[in-house]
């Protein structure tokens, strides 16, 4: 039994005694991961986002010093074990120019598109994860996987543009079924052959994807874009089936766990503490087995309404209503919600770092952008929005620094991320967010 497997058993679905008795898919790679990597098989670099609402508490998270070896701060305590594997970004600003500051939306959309959005709940361009997917997702089974930790089916900030967002998985069971349910190719099977059912399904799909009618040329611009998106989606499904017809080659040392129970999903902090690590670990195994190379996890929504049982004020309400305690200089109860959000992020980082891959961990072969909608939620401020970049993107990122953006555009972060992920782009964003200045200090 590998440490990885013990880690899974211990951590993943605690309290279910039946797990041990269930037939596991055998621990299929054990020590092969190293071997495969040693024989030169390329480990893909993954990209993900972690979104939480309502920002952090400046007095509690922001270190005074920048660069390497910045001092520890209380709000980031949960991330301390991974400090050397992440970069803390502060002081970057979403420029709105002549557009309104759409509360709890402008910051979110500007960070992921480089464009201050014109309207609420709509993206003026493809979000950064989808742009990166265009380059790196080919060959993986799913273009991207989205997850909502609160279980809200509308909570996803990944989009091909417009108000359509990629719908999230809303429970551990849902995520498990998507990743390891029907269509999952078990690489441990010695006599692996492509599934005849998937072959037939793939063979008839061209009837749909090739069905371009003359009538559709008569459609208006808005509906034409919607038809284009539909056909893009059909094409992506063809790629999914293509991937399912390939013999899987996986280098990570992981075990596919048994199916989790259906768990209650809601916005209470204790429940989030229960489900977020489970979702994070499933997601990590999905990445390690190359089901996807792109993920987006939403811990809470913009204007986060996560709550502590017994306290009638949810997070967002608290940011506006709780008085600042002048003796400490911040809102004591509100600040706890920010801390809880960082604890949620830490469980994701832990899950990624807990999977060995090649001569490092899954986290080392990933880049995760954690971001939020505001800096000071009380004022809906979009200057100084805190962000964290975790993972070294297979060596393309230097980590361990605190970078102060000193008022430069948030699009610099997106540009840096794209370059680290190997995209050929030297300029990103529009209007005042347009930039050709990546954060060179952290690009390797």
């Amino acid at each position: 039994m590998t440490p990885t497997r013990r880690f899974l058993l211990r951590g993943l679905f605690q309290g279910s005694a039946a797990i041990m008795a269930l037939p596991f898919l055998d621990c299929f790679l054990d020590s092969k991961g190293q071997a495969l990597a040693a024989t030169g098989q390329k480990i893909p670099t993954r990209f993900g986002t972690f979104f939480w609402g309502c920002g952090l508490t400046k007095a509690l998270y922001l270190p005074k010093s920048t660069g390497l070896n910045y001092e520890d701060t209380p709000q980031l305590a949960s991330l301390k074990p991974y400090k050397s594997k992440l970069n803390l970004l502060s002081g970057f600003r979403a420029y709105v120019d002549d557009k309104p500051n759409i509360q709890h939306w402008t910051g979110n959309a500007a960070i992921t598109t480089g464009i201050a959005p014109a309207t609420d709940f709509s993206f003026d361009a493809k979000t950064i994860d989808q742009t990166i997917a265009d380059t790196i997702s080919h060959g993986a089974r799913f273009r991207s996987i989205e997850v909502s930790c609160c279980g809200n089916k509308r909570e996803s900030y990944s989009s091909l543009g417009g108000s359509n967002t990629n719908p999230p998985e809303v429970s551990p069971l849902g995520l498990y079924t998507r990743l390891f349910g029907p269509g999952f190719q078990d690489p441990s099977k010695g006599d692996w052959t492509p599934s005849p059912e998937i072959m037939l399904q793939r063979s008839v799909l061209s009837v749909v994807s090739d069905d371009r009618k003359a009538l559709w040329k008569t459609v208006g611009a808005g509906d034409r874009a919607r038809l284009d998106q539909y056909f893009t989606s059909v094409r992506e499904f063809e790629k999914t089936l293509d991937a399912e017809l390939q013999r899987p080659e996986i280098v990570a040392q992981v075990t596919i766990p048994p199916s989790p129970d259906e768990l209650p999903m809601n916005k209470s902090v204790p429940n989030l503490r229960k489900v977020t690590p489970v979702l994070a670990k499933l997601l990590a195994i999905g990445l390690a087995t190359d089901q996807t190379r792109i993920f987006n996890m939403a811990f809470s929504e913009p204007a986060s309404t996560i709550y502590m049982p017994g306290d009638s004020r949810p997070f967002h309400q608290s940011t506006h209503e709780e008085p600042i305690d002048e003796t400490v200089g911040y809102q004591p109860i509100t600040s706890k919600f920010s801390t809880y959000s960082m604890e949620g992020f830490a469980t994701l980082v832990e899950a990624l770092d807990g999977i060995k891959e090649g001569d490092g961990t899954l986290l080392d072969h990933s880049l995760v952008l954690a971001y939020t909608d505001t800096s000071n939620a009380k004022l809906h401020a979009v200057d100084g929005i805190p962000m964290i970049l975790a993972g070294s993107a297979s060596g393309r990122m230097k980590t361990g620094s605190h970078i102060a953006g000193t008022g430069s555009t948030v699009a610099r972060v997106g540009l840096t991320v794209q370059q680290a992920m190997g995209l050929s782009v030297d300029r990103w964003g529009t209007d005042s967010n347009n930039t050709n200045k990546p954060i060179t200090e952290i690009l390797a």
Partner: protein
Amino acid sequence: MRRSRHTLAFLTGLCLLAGTQAALAAAPGPYLAGLRRLTESQYRNSISDIFGPDILVQGKFEPDQRVGGLLAASSSTLSITPAGFEGYAKIADGIARQVVDEKHRAKLLACTPKSAAASDRGCASQIFEKIGLQLFRRPLTSEELKARLDAADAVTKQSGNFYTGIRYSLTTLLSAPDFLFRTEIAVPAGKAYTLDGYSRAARLSYMLWDTTPDEGLLTAARTGALDSDAGVKTEVARLMASPRLEVGMRSFFSDFLQLDTLGTITKDPTIYPKYSDEIAASAREETLRTSMDLVLKNNGDFRELFTTRKTFINRPLAWIYDVPYNLDGAWMPYEFHDGDGRSGIVTQASMLSMFSHPGRSSPTKRGVALMDIFLCEPTPTPPANVDFSIVNDTNNPKLRTVRDRLMAHATTPTCASCHTHSDPIGLSLEQFDSVGERRLKDDGRDIDVSAVIADKHFEGAGGLGQYLHDNPRVPACFVRKLYAYGVGASSEDIQTATVRSYLNGFTTGGYQVPALLKSIVTSPQFFAAPPPAPANPSVKTATR
């Protein structure tokens, strides 16, 4: 305010049209005027009607969004994402598998092949012609049919099974844009444009029954009967006389009253231990039963939805309302007493719990929601740098109740314009907590439920109910939303003249919803289409 992309596209189309009038005048053929993604309930109802209620529809649907107060409007703005298509493909696979299984094939397929182990193009043709007509809501074109027959042939050859061929080929109908979207085709009608017969059939059917057109409607489309006002009236009379009208109206009221919200809210169990998923589902059903009983079964005055004390309760709701439940059955009619403080649907557990926080009521949330739903008056977002701390400074000895604190905040000049607008409505409902239970005290003091809107003073939920009952904007808003629901547009984009054209009859007729519905769906306006977009030879969908 949010403007739908549909409208923008339409306006762009208009501008471009001006420059190409001559070119278009030469060839005004049928064109695609609208594309409306089926809602989950429309999808489920359609499959149930086409293949029978025992065919299970299992899988994940793409969520919709509320635009101008209605989810129905987003059917005209949303498309299908990669994860969404994957979901639809899986659902389609599950349906097709069941349709051809041994239990169902004899009943659901129009033909039995000469041999179950070989291709039978003639037989497959009969099968796909029938199912294709039902799924696409129009006959398949010869190209569409041929593609399905070829696919079925190929799979049958590979698998040695006729039904396997049908199964896989059937998934291509269920995954096609022509099924997943209602493609609305328009044709010239004099100087204007109108929907063709099949598109009319679908619009009527989804509006009135929330499902795919039945055989009668498809026949009326084929014969051209639906192209005339008289033909439309005949079909509308038939559809409205059916008990299935209630399915359609439940769907509309659920959307209009935003009852889907009950599926997404949570309550803090340490504060509200009574609340559960069962309460949420019951609360939704209560409001729909009350609405259907009043507007359909009794053909009553729509405005009484705000004043009636009659409702329907089950055992879990009796617990919330703290009333006896002495029936063995699942639901019983119930009438609240005068002193219970209840007044119509705005005091039902559904509305009270949907627009509250997990751990407490919110006069602002309730006020904002009711203004939006019943008055079509969305509240602008507050300025970015508002200081709300006074609202929650519970240590201030002068501001002890929620009302005191909210009012102190709301009198700040920058806040007043919105709060004087929405808060009175919410404050009048403060005697009901976050799950709809009655409470008379806040922090040990009596709750003041007096309110003033536009110099009209009223008291508590009863006063609010009467205010909404008497407010002429309420029926106007209802007309606006019912029409927007049918045509799949944002309610904010519906012309005032359009609303007025139905409002007068609604008002003079005593606010009867069936009569209003009939006047809308039998008016030529209901089928009017925007002019065609200019032909664009570089359409991306035409190439690969």
